[in-house]
């Protein structure tokens, strides 16, 4: 692709991000919001068991190219991750379906800032991306995510939030 990929944090609709099964006080913002996500001490933690769903809507259509998912090195970093596209109502009972991309992260990928390339053809015109963490590196009951970065580029449509009244 000719267009270089960028961090899509600007395109995320952060007020509508939804996270299921997160623990109180250790919320999705710690992993997604700029500033917080760079701090390895601030985590998004699972509550009841090791599963976690983070649903991120975008302000306009985007094409995704790669992901960075980082967790702490104590075995609570995510291992099996499924990425769903345009499923705004994803929850734990309908995440068994075929995902746009199923990943099994290696320890190096899950604890470092290594980019995970996505199948480009599956991630065209994305309005909502949902990241479902199925289990973690250590197999324990708690999953921690320190950082989620979504890379790609916006499909250049009219960005309604930039429209001004004349």
């Amino acid at each position, binding site marked *: 692709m000719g267009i270089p990929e960028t961090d899509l944090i600007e395109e995320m609709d952060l*007020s*509508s991000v*939804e996270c*299921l*099964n997160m623990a*109180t006080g250790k919320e999705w913002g710690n992993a997604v919001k700029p500033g917080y996500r760079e701090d390895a001490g601030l985590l998004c933690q699972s*509550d*009841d*068991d090791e*599963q976690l769903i983070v649903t991120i809507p975008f302000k306009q259509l985007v094409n995704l190219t790669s992901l960075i998912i980082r967790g702490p090195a104590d075995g609570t970093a995510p291992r099996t991750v499924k990425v769903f596209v345009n499923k*705004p*109502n994803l*929850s*734990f*009972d309908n995440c068994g379906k075929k995902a746009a991309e199923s990943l099994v992260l290696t320890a190096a990928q899950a604890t470092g800032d290594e980019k995970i390339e996505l199948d480009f053809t599956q991630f065209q015109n994305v309005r909502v991306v949902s990241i479902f963490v199925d289990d973690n590196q250590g197999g324990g009951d708690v999953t921690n995510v320190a950082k989620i970065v979504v890379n790609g580029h916006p499909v250049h449509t009219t960005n309604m939030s930039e429209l001004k009244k004349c």
Partner: protein
Amino acid sequence: MVLEATMLCIDNSDHVRNSDYLPSRLQAEGDAVNLLAGAKTQSNPENSVGVLSLAGKVPRVLVTPTDDLGQVLNAVHGISTGGSIKLSTGVQVAHLALKHRQNKHQRMRIVLFVGSPVCASKDELTSVGKKLRKCNVAVDVISFGDIEQNSEKLEAFVAAVNKNDNSNIVTVPPGAIIADVLLSTRVFMADDNITNGASSFAAAAAAASSQAAVRGYARDGAIADGADDPALMLALRVSLEEERARQEAQMKDTDDASSEEKNAAAHLICAQDTIAKGSGKPPSPIVDPLSLDEEALLQRAFALSMAEEHAITTGKTGNDNQDTMTGSDAGLQMESQENTISLAAHAADFQDNEPCIDPILSSLPAGEGDEEKDSPRESRRSQQESKHSKTS
């Protein structure tokens, strides 16, 4: 001001035909649902409320979450009874309806009315509860009817779903009015502090006005008699609430070590008991002249409106002697009669607790109260008899 979508799950099984909660379990819970829906939609303009019936062939969503109170009232009004409740299925259907809410900013809440034996096993309920907890759904359970039989299962269910203390269970003993018991519980006040006087005042005011609206709605705007005066209802309710709050505060002072741990329902029941027995001490040993003035004014207003009430009812029966009486007229009259009696009951409560009301009441025309209470009924009976004789 919590932004949330609520599914109200109504128990419409055969068990709710029982009339141990007046007028019947179904209607009592219907009233509570109307009130709750009103309070929820008033607490935040973006809140939405849906209705689901738990029994029948299968649990059915009657109204998907909406901010239109009319739809909710309509659905509750047209509900039919039959079958037995399927709690775990119903809860999951409610979750599905909530999951597809329009506004993703809304938090999800399910309010369950359970007035019949729960067939599902404790394990089943616990696993459903855990699923809901994982999906950030809060659940309030209002248990009435088969309280003892259900308590273990329902408590296990609420414990499984509870996260940050967002789920509650309220038990309503037989004979109590479900809506009234709910008023001062956390089901109504969301996450506000119950003992906070200002918030309970606001909630009571909202509830009173919505109840008045509901009554008006049900009767097609036939608000003619003084008992339906929403301002009077509000004044009564607010003063009852204040009294209750004061007693609670007093109880807390006397044994603050233990009472802090008690839940709201226990407090409420205690407060009601003391009111019912009339053995409660005068509310506050230190008499605040300001509050006394207010109280005295309220009593006077109350006494005055009682007098008006009598005048109205007697006047009405006088008129009706000349008119031919239709069936709907009779229904209306019955209802106004009931209202008068319930007002009188409130008055009795006041009299027990407030020594200052005695001189006011005694200043009324002597012995009028009791006679008046009986005479309209008798005169109406004689009317009906005469009407029967006419028709036959």
